[in-house]
């Protein structure tokens, strides 16, 4: 379902073009969860941005297809409508825009692009209520500005809430576990697990084996210096936890 082949991307810096992704290939069949681990600065977040079409990054090579559709030629909002969702490592604050307005605008934009009717105010409210309840998010939060003054954990939960609302086909979660307390981690993991289905694919970026105890991956990749350097089963995450990146990557290299 997800086919990423030899994807290369660069960014314009003051000292010229800097290549960050140096040929990433991933194959994620529908229904599977793949995890990516890797040291700081490996390019994990960059991969998530490039997949979702952030303008600052220039794709210099390779391809990215979802259900055989070329995603690279779509604008970010079109990729979202096609079913790509990114839970941000650092969710962005939008002062003055309250959560319910934001959710409503997002869902209706996506529905419109998918050729579906916009949801009326009442159905929207009901849906938001239900999803909040699932994720243990208080409804008061829906009256607050997007991510403004949210605690680290609240921000992450809010990402999963949006994911649940938009019902994507391909979910990329960038360190959604960091900053979560143990109970919240479980709630978020339950939220993600509830969305697992044979039609959906997940790419979970994390530094910690702990998350993978809750969200069981089918495949674990290790990324370093802009490339996937090792791929294995869930046991690879455990190995990392025991030995550390230096040893595991060293072996691969």
């Amino acid at each position, binding site marked *: 379902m997800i086919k990423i082949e030899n994807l290369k991307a660069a960014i314009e810096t003051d000292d010229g073009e800097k290549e960050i992704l140096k040929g990433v290939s991933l194959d994620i069949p529908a229904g599977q969860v793949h995890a990516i681990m890797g040291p700081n600065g490996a390019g994990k977040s960059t991969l998530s941005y490039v997949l979702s079409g952030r303008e600052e990054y220039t794709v210099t090579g390779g391809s990215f297809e979802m259900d055989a559709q070329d995603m690279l030629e779509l604008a970010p909002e079109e990729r979202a409508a096609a079913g790509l969702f990114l839970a941000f490592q650092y969710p962005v604050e939008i002062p003055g825009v309250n959560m319910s*307005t934001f959710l409503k605008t997002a869902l209706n934009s996506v529905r419109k692009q998918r050729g579906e009717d916009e949801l009326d105010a009442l159905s929207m409210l009901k849906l938001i209520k239900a999803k909040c309840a699932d994720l243990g998010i208080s409804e008061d939060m829906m009256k607050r500005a997007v991510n403004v003054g949210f605690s680290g954990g609240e921000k992450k939960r809010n990402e999963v809430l949006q994911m649940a609302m938009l019902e994507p086909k391909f979910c990329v979660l960038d360190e959604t576990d960091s900053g979560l307390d143990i109970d919240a981690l479980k709630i978020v993991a339950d939220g993600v697990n509830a969305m697992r289905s044979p039609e959906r694919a997940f790419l979970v970026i994390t530094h910690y084996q702990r998350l993978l105890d809750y969200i069981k991956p089918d495949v674990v990749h290790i990324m370093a210096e802009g490339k996937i350097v090792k791929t294995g089963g869930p046991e690879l995450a455990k190995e990392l936890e025991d030995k550390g990146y230096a040893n595991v990557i060293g072996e691969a290299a």
Partner: protein
Amino acid sequence: MGATEETIQQIKSMAGKYEAGFVTDIETDKAPKGLSEEIVRLISSKKNEPEWMLQWRLKAFQRWLEMPEPDWQKPKFPKIDYQDIHYYAAPKSMANKPKSLDEVDPELLKTYEKLGIPLKEQEILAGVQKPVAVDVVFDSVSVATTFKEKLKEAGVIFCSISEAIQNHPDLVKKYIGSVVPPGDNKHACLNSAVFTDGSFVYVPEGVRCPMELSTYFRINELNTGQFERTLIIADKGAYVSYLEGCTAPMRDENQLHAAVVELIAHDDAEIKYSTVQNWYPGNFETGQGGVYNFVTKRGLCEGRNSKISWTQVETGSAITWKYPSCILKGDHSQGEFYSVAITNGRQQADTGTKMIHIGKNTKSRIVAKGISAGKSDQTYRGLVKIMPKAQGARNFTQCDSLLIGDQCGAHTVPYIESRNKTANLEHEATTSKISEDQLFYCMQRGIGEEEALALIVNGFAREVMQHLPMEFAVEAQKLVGISLEGSVG
């Protein structure tokens, strides 16, 4: 005799030198271009005004001839050719003022229908929205005022200024020019000489106006200026909320709009004045055409505990020159100014406020949000002045500028003059660029770039937008989006 012919005759009898005659239009009765004493007399006679009003106008006209143009504002533009403007234009069908909406030219009604301004009371009452009383001004005349009867029951007078001059001369005489004297500035002076219509509101002692009042201004005719005059008086303990909206068709020529608004709040009275200004901004690329919006708005908090609150959403006009102000004369009186100004394309805006603290324990609050996009340029200009007797005066000022793209400009020019040591003044200002992170976050959620921009800008302006009457808030939010079109991507 047809209306136009009649006008020709009138002019001839007054001046006898207009060989060129009139630009005749099937629908419009227009005075010839140019400004002269005769034109001032014509306007006054068209409106059947009493002698004192005519004299007041003529005095203003004499003054205007001598006054210099203001030149301290940032926007610069070619000298206005005052002789190239029509100072009076009225739909012909309005020659005999229709007594009810049924008599109004259907073409005119259609114009307002197209603009989304409901005029039929029955339809409004049947609608889902809370009813709003409207006075509609088309070029130089008021076309209709709705819900007059209902307001009359409450004792509220809401009519066009022309009617007020006829029916409530004492009130008009007492208050007109009392807050903005004709000699205040050249534009206000011009208005005093040639004002054609506008709204008049009087809310008697102890009355809370039962509904929102609003006026809708439209400039339709080519090369026609609009000079409306609005006068609102809230007597002791009264409350009124008033909103004005404005549009003009696209014209390659600049149109001049020089309005004067005067508000008077007596003891314990409150006036809330909101503006959604959407005059034609001129050509997006070249800047050709558009309205010159030179407006003098001022409120006098005459009484103790009185309050005047200005809220403005300024999105249109080629050039905006506008500083809605409050004179806080009564002890414990309060002035507020909430402003969102958006400039795009080649627009230029120089806008802000003046808060003049005269009475004791007077309070003012200024929240100005400026959004500049395209190749536009915007200046916030504000004055907070504390007079020697304004013991315990307080002001809070917040100015935030948001830049979209790197070809626009934003400037903040706050003046503070404090002549009382007990005054407490706070000023905060920020300038930021539209955040790529915010835009991308929205777009990742499926929201298109322009809609994302509108969402973020509405959020940025929220503190101001939430002061608009509910009935207009949704429209104003949409307008924010529309006026930013073409500024990203």
